[in-house]
């Protein structure tokens, strides 16, 4: 299978797995959050429930002047239960039946409690009203009785008020008995008490009646409220929640495992990708190393081939030099060797004369010399000599010898020039007479220059300059060669030297074909050549340029088509050591 297919499958699985895990996570509730929230809510409900109990008691014993707090707490409890139901027991909430049942129970309990509270409130209000007005009515009846000097009545009223309050507020059963005993006495008093107090007496009686009735009812409701089972219902719900959460944790841990599995799956993918990347990098590193090696090799080859080209240019100019010099040397060599042969032949004739002299000397040394014989020998000798003179053998020998020694001096001059030209013994910059190099170059080029006129206008006060003579001679040779090749057979090459400031100037002028502006621009470029293929490497002038530059000098070209070319070489008298890099 292709790696790309594998990768696609892997990516598909990763995305599908991610979506699956996400979906599953969304179905499993977050235990911690729910637990916190539910606990908070249950605590609030429980607190409100307790508050209600307390507030009910406070209302019963007149600690709270009104029902505001009680009503608020009851409403809050309602709201809490409502929102709790909405949060967890709506359609999408918890579906655990036990929990739902438990909550429904709590809810109905609270509803019942609420009704009880309402009933309590109404009865308690009536009770409180009577509790408040009964003592006042009793007080006024007591004062009336006192005025009417009815002590018993006064006492009865007083004790009734006391007992009523004791019963109402403390619930004393002793008091109610007392009241029940006193009540018939109260009816008896109606007739004793003045007329105007009858309304008060009626009111008092009603209040007492109300207190007795309402106290019972109120207390009944109160106890019902206080004994409400909502507390236990809250506990039950709380426990239910704990159990439900516990059951949820199974799902939670499964989700956790699922998450771990998914992360492991992703990690494996990541590891694989990392591994692949590492391999890729290693491969790339290797590739880059190989490429670098290749580039380096190519560069080395280029450098080498440049060196080879420079060398071949040197060889080409050497070959040209050798060709010229060979002709120059072969000419005298030809006639010298021929002359030697001829002279040897002529010496054969002289040999006869020498032999004759020998014979004469032998004859003379005899005790009696034969003058006749000597005479005939001398005669023969003279004949030979005359023949030789007639043939001009002797003067010819003289001439041939003279020619030969001239030829030998020519050859030795030429060899000297070659030595001057190449100066292979010098590899460092030395003080050099530039004219010597120019002369040697001209001699070497003699064959190439042929009949072209060479005008030398040399500055006789030319100082020695520090340079590498062999290199400069190569420059001169290149320029002179080009001049000779650019001019007609009867052309002129003018070489001028002069001192200029801290340096010297050598000018090569010819009246040859000249060159275009383009040619002038390219003359020092490597491989630029106007010669036929095989006639020049195209490196001559570029090497000349390099050499002059390495001497800290300048080489310039001025040319006009049809008129000629001038090459100007400027060189400093002294070399700064750094500048003179060796051209190999």
């Amino acid at each position, binding site marked *: 299978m292709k790696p790309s297919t594998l990768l696609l499958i892997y990516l598909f699985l990763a995305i599908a797995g991610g979506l699956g895990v996400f979906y599953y996570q969304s179905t499993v509730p977050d235990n911690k959050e729910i637990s916190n929230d539910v606990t908070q809510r249950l605590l609030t409900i429980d607190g409100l429930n307790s508050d209600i109990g307390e507030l009910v008691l406070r209302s019963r014993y007149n600690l709270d002047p009104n029902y505001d707090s009680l009503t608020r707490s009851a409403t809050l409890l309602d709201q809490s239960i409502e929102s709790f139901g909405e949060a967890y027991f709506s359609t999408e909430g918890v579906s655990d039946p036990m929990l739902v049942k438990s909550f429904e129970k709590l809810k109905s309990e609270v509803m019942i409690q609420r009704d009880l509270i309402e009933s309590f409130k109404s009865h308690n209000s009536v009770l409180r009203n009577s509790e408040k007005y009964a003592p006042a009515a009793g007080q006024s009846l007591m004062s009336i009785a006192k005025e009417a000097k009815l002590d018993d009545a006064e006492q009865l009223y007083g004790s009734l008020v006391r007992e009523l309050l004791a019963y109402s507020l403390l619930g004393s059963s002793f008091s109610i008995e007392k009241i029940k005993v006193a009540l018939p006495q109260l009816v008896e008093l109606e007739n004793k008490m003045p007329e105007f107090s009858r309304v008060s007496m009626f009111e008092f009686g009603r209040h007492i009646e109300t207190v007795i009735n309402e106290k019972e009812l109120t207390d009944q409701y109160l106890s019902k409220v206080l004994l409400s089972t909502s507390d236990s219902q809250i506990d039950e719900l709380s426990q239910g929640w704990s159990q439900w959460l516990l059951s949820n944790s199974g799902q939670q841990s499964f989700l956790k495992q699922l998450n771990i599995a998914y992360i492991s799956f992703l990690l494996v993918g990541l590891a694989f990708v990392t591994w692949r990347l590492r391999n890729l990098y290693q491969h790339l590193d290797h590739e880059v190393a190989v490429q670098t090696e290749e580039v380096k090799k190519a560069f080395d080859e280029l450098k080498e081939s440049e060196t080879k080209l420079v060398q071949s240019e040197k060889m080409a100019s050497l070959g040209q030099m050798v060709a010229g010099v060979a002709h120059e040397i072969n000419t005298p060599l030809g006639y010298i*060797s021929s002359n030697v*042969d001829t002279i040897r032949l002529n010496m054969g004739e002289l040999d006869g004369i020498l032999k004759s002299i020998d014979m004469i000397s032998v004859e003379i040394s005899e005790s009696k010399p034969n003058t006749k014989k000597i005479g005939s020998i001398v005669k023969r000798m003279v004949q030979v000599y005359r023949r030789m003179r007639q043939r001009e053998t002797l003067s010819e020998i003289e001439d*041939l010898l003279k020619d030969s020694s001239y030829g030998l001096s020519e050859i030795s001059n030429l060899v000297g020039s070659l030595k001057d030209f190449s100066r292979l013994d010098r590899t460092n910059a030395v003080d050099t007479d530039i004219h010597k190099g120019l002369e040697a170059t001209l001699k070497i080029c003699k064959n190439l220059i042929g009949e072209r006129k060479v005008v030398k206008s040399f500055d006789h006060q030319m100082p020695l300059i520090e340079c590498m003579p062999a290199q400069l001679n190569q420059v001169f040779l290149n320029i002179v060669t080009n001049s000779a090749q650019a001019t007609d057979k009867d052309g002129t090459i003018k070489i001028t030297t002069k001192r200029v400031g801290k340096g010297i100037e050598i000018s090569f002028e010819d009246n040859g074909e000249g060159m275009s502006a383009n040619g002038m621009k390219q003359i020092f470029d490597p491989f630029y050549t106007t010669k036929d293929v095989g006639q020049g490497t195209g490196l001559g002038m570029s090497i000349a340029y390099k050499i002059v530059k390495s001497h800290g000098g300048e080489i310039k070209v001025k040319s006009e088509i049809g008129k000629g070319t001038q090459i100007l070489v400027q060189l400093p008298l002294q070399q700064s050591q750094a500048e003179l890099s060796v051209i190999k």
Partner: protein
Amino acid sequence: MSKDLQTKNTAIKALPEVLLVDDEPRILRSMKAALKKHYDIFTAHNAKEAKSLIKKNKGFSVIISDERMPDILGHELLAWSKDNYSKMIRILMTGYSDIKAIQNSINEAEIYKYITKPWNVKELKSIIDSGIVRVNTGMQVDVQKHDVNQAKCALVFLNMVDHNDQIYTKVAKRLSMEPNMVHDIGSTLLVLENNKHAGVLFIDDDHVNEDTFNLVMLIHDKYPKIVIIVATSAADGKSAIKLLNQGQIFRYLVKPLTETKLFPMLNAAAQRFYKQTTRHDHLDGSMNNETSGSSIKSYWRKIISFL
């Protein structure tokens, strides 16, 4: 040659006349000293002098010229003398064998031999002598056009390269000559042996070596009438000189060659063959007619074999 000159020559023992041309007087002096015993030596320092001497003397037996001279190149002077005094044996002498000069001297001046400096007097003498034999036997004499027997001339192409066969066949057809295409030395010799009309041998060889030299020498020896042309892409002065001096090749060509170049050249070669054949026939005839003793006969035979 005019009768006056002949009588004059006979009067002074009739030494062969040799003209030396060189711009270096010492060479002239040296050569004259070496050769004057055997030949009547004339010297000229430049082409102008040489030309006027030739005109004045109405030709010489042999002209030996230096190649590099101020006013003219040696092969140019020799080409001039070929055109004007074709009987003269032309020898070129030079200190430096430059391929262009060699090629020109063979193809344009049709020189007899090429001598390199420094020269050997003995060799020089033997070359001059062999040239003089040619003159004396009339080999250099122009055969009159109407005399030329325009017999059949078969072309033999020794093609040592893989291509060019087609061009050669085509040119031969244009010349209405019979082309014989061979590709090795053995079959070349076989064709020459069997084809009586073989007149021109064209050798196309990019690797001229000892085998080529030997073949050319052998053919020149055995079939002196056959005109030999060598074409190569690797021009080399030394081998050109060797082919000329030992095999007397008619042309030394540097490829590439075109059909238009080849056509007149092969034609000229064929004309040369006709002339040589006519001369040989003439000489053979005169030899057979001569009844005045075996010594003369053997002399002719010697001359013919020499050629």
